[in-house]
């Protein structure tokens, strides 16, 4: 629990009364400031080699050079670094930084500094967050530390408020603030009427955010942030009018969409948010949109999207009918032979199954169409920054993943789509899996694009039975996109049928490297994981197809802030164990997937531009920035 000791040290730092401190970055020796900037520059060029990201990289570096009070003369060099020249040596620079006397062996101060820098404009760009995560891991700081820092940033708001009212010297500022407060209060009240939680926290928090930033960033930065303009930009971080996502009302019926609202999953606030999208509803346990997401703890501020409940319910019922009946058994049997050879499309569907096809085909068709519409609508909401200037992570299964797919597709066509989406996780997605359709997503997504698929999900192949044989469905196989962002996770061991995506969401989330609530895993281990199929969602284990999880560098393990002295236990120990257990219980009915298999190779070289060991990435233009 070493990680837990840290916050106690950090807290006082963050809450020092308007500390007369320079940002840590500026205290470093010049050579080390240079190394710090160079490290960021090279990392940027590795993370975002695409030409459309170059302006961001250049601007970021220019800002950082200024922030670190480095001479203008280094700017051309830094720009060269950021555009991919001189790619070697991140480890050298990291080493140099680690030896710095001011950091005193606590490199998380760099993380803190970089975070302060990234937030100073009141925008938290998803790319900046990915960079912060990357640097954090290069400096061998556990990513939980970043959570703690982000949290400290927010926590310090409350404290600062109290201090400010006590301190006499702040009275002038207070008066100034009060005027603004009134305004925020009005906005806040307006949204409270609408029964929104985020309305209060989002809008009202704005002046506090500015004050909190002051303590974190230090007095120099505070001067800038304390100004009216500073407060305004901090407001932007949390969503313009304070109403945020829950305050969002679909003004008119958009296209074919009948229902579209955001429901808060958690009460907290965070510098980054997660939106979960459910793929179908069913009677009983999974009748609500939030039901599958109980274990999700990626961020302290999470929403789930409620959309087209009527149709999703219809679909869910149809799925249950099919998957619980005789047809399921027949299909499973048939699958045993086909799935192993990997030719799911060639499956000859049993007659008994085809006879119930009409039960599913209709609702499925309707939902396919609606999900695309909903995805496009979501894209425009995100583009208009209803969520504030914060990175967003999208997680969805089944048709929810399809919503994400179309959301990304729509965003990719719009201007200013960069830096909004941090990670996306698509589970069992009924969408085209051809890499060329995923190509544009590189522009939109800053962090990871995770495709969780199951070779044993016969339902997906069944509903696509009428389409051409060549059709690649992302939910059935890896998407072979050559990019560091793309990660394919084979969930075949966990997901035996399409319904499992909701039922085993906790295991799945762990498998794809999304943080889950502490306790779920441990509890699972106590229960016998043998009865794999129809159980409660948290039944099974902390498991996953461990082999598929890429190394946990900056982009992969997103921190979820929050709730705890938690997650000290690394996922690994439980993995192996569980895999063994699953293996036994499953028998040979599903393909073994432990080893990262050829086609499912995880492209995850967040660390380097193009290490030779990452064959799948080698063809892409992107990760080889140094070559031209």
């Amino acid at each position: 629990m070493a990680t837990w000791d840290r916050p106690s040290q950090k807290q006082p730092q963050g809450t020092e009364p308007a500390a007369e401190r320079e940002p840590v970055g500026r205290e470093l020796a010049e050579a080390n400031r240079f190394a710090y900037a160079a490290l960021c520059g090279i990392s940027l060029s590795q993370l975002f080699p695409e030409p459309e990201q170059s302006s961001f990289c250049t601007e970021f570096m220019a800002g950082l050079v200024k922030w670190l009070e480095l001479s203008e003369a280094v700017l051309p060099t830094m720009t060269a670094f950021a555009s991919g020249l001189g790619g070697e040596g991140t480890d050298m620079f990291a080493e140099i930084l680690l030896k710095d006397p001011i950091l005193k062996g606590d490199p998380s101060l760099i993380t803190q500094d970089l975070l302060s820098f990234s937030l100073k404009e009141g925008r938290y760009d998803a790319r900046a967050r990915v960079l912060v995560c990357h640097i954090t891991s290069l400096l061998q700081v556990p990513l939980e530390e970043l959570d703690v820092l982000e949290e400290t940033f927010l926590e310090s708001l409350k404290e600062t408020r109290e201090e400010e009212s006590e301190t006499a010297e702040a009275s002038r500022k207070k008066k100034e603030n009060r005027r603004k407060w009134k305004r925020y209060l009005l906005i806040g009240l307006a949204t409270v009427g609408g029964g929104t939680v985020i309305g209060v926290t989002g809008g009202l928090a704005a002046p506090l955010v500015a004050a909190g930033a002051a303590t974190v960033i230090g007095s120099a930065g505070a001067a800038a942030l304390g100004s009216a303009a500073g407060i305004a930009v901090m407001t932007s971080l949390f969503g313009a009018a304070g109403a945020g996502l829950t305050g969002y009302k679909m003004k008119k019926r958009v296209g074919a969409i009948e229902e579209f609202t955001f429901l808060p999953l958690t009460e907290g606030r965070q510098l980054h948010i997660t939106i979960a999208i459910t793929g179908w509803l069913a009677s009983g346990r999974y009748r609500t949109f939030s039901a599958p997401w109980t274990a999700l703890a990626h961020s302290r501020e999470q929403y789930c999207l409620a959309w087209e409940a009527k149709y999703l319910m219809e679909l869910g019922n149809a799925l249950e009918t099919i998957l619980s009946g005789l047809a399921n058994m027949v299909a499973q049997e048939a699958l045993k032979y086909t799935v192993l050879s990997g030719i799911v499309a060639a499956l000859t569907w049993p007659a008994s199954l085809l006879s119930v096809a009409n039960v599913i085909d209709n609702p499925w068709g309707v939902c396919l169409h609606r999900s695309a519409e909903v995805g496009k609508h979501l894209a425009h909401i995100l583009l208009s920054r209803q969520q504030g200037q914060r990175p967003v992570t999208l997680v969805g299964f089944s048709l929810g993943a399809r919503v994400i797919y179309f959301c990304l597709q729509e965003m990719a066509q719009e201007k200013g789509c960069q830096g909004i989406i941090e990670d996306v996780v698509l589970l069992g997605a009924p969408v085209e899996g051809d890499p060329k359709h995923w190509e544009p997503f590189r522009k939109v997504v800053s962090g990871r694009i995770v495709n969780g698929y199951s070779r044993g999900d016969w339902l997906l192949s069944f509903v696509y039975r009428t389409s051409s044989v060549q059709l690649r469905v992302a939910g059935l196989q890896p998407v072979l996109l050559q990019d560091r962002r793309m990660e394919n996770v084979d969930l075949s061991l966990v997901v035996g049928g399409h319904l499992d995506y909701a039922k085993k969401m906790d295991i799945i989330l762990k498998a794809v490297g999304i943080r889950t609530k502490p306790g779920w895993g441990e509890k699972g281990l106590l229960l016998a994981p043998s009865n794999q199929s129809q159980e409660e969602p948290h039944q099974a284990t902390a498991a996953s197809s461990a082999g598929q999880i890429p190394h946990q560098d900056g982009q992969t393990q997103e921190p979820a802030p929050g709730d705890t002295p938690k997650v000290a236990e690394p996922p690994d120990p439980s993995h192996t164990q569980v895999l063994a257990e699953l293996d036994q219980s499953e028998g040979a009915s599903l393909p073994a997937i432990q080893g990262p298999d050829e086609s499912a190779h995880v492209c995850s070289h967040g660390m380097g531009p193009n290490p030779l060991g990452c064959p799948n990435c080698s063809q892409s233009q992107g990760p080889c920035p140094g070559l031209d």
Partner: protein
Amino acid sequence: MDEDVLTTLKILIIGESGVGKSSLLLRFTDDTFDPELAATIGVDFKVKTISVDGNKAKLAIWDTAGQERFRTLTPSYYRGAQGVILVYDVTRRDTFVKLDNWLNELETYCTRNDIVNMLVGNKIDKENREVDRNEGLKFARKHSMLFIEASAKTCDGVQCAFEELVEKIIQTPGLWESENQNKGVKLSHMEESHGGGACGGYCSVL
């Protein structure tokens, strides 16, 4: 990547503070001279394409800071360099004496041992010369380096220094070809996987 460029070479310029490393580079790339040039911070970076014997080579030149406080950064740049230009000031004997330290550092951090080194005695336009040309030549021979005397101010020998260095690098095929092959492997990794071609460069090292 330009079609006609044979290869991209990484060149490093090192030496004591104030010997004129940045001035040499500036003269070479921009053909300008600034007597009041400020001390380099960290490292400076310039790219220039030159043509030697009909072969075009793109030079990525890293101009390191000579000041002691930036010394920690220098090792980061040695990796992958094919050529190193070691500069001293002919009017300051101390900069000549300290060459040994630089050679030590070079040996410690360089990733390849067939790297081409060149010794440049700068500021020959000045009157108060302290290091004789023969001394420099002797030192260079002893450590098997190329040698030239130059002046960034009068443009004497600057172009020549870079050209000779590049020529020598190109004449040492293992040096830059292995680099090229490595790149080839990177790009066509799918077909070649861990191609034997990549080890060619290392074999010659052995």
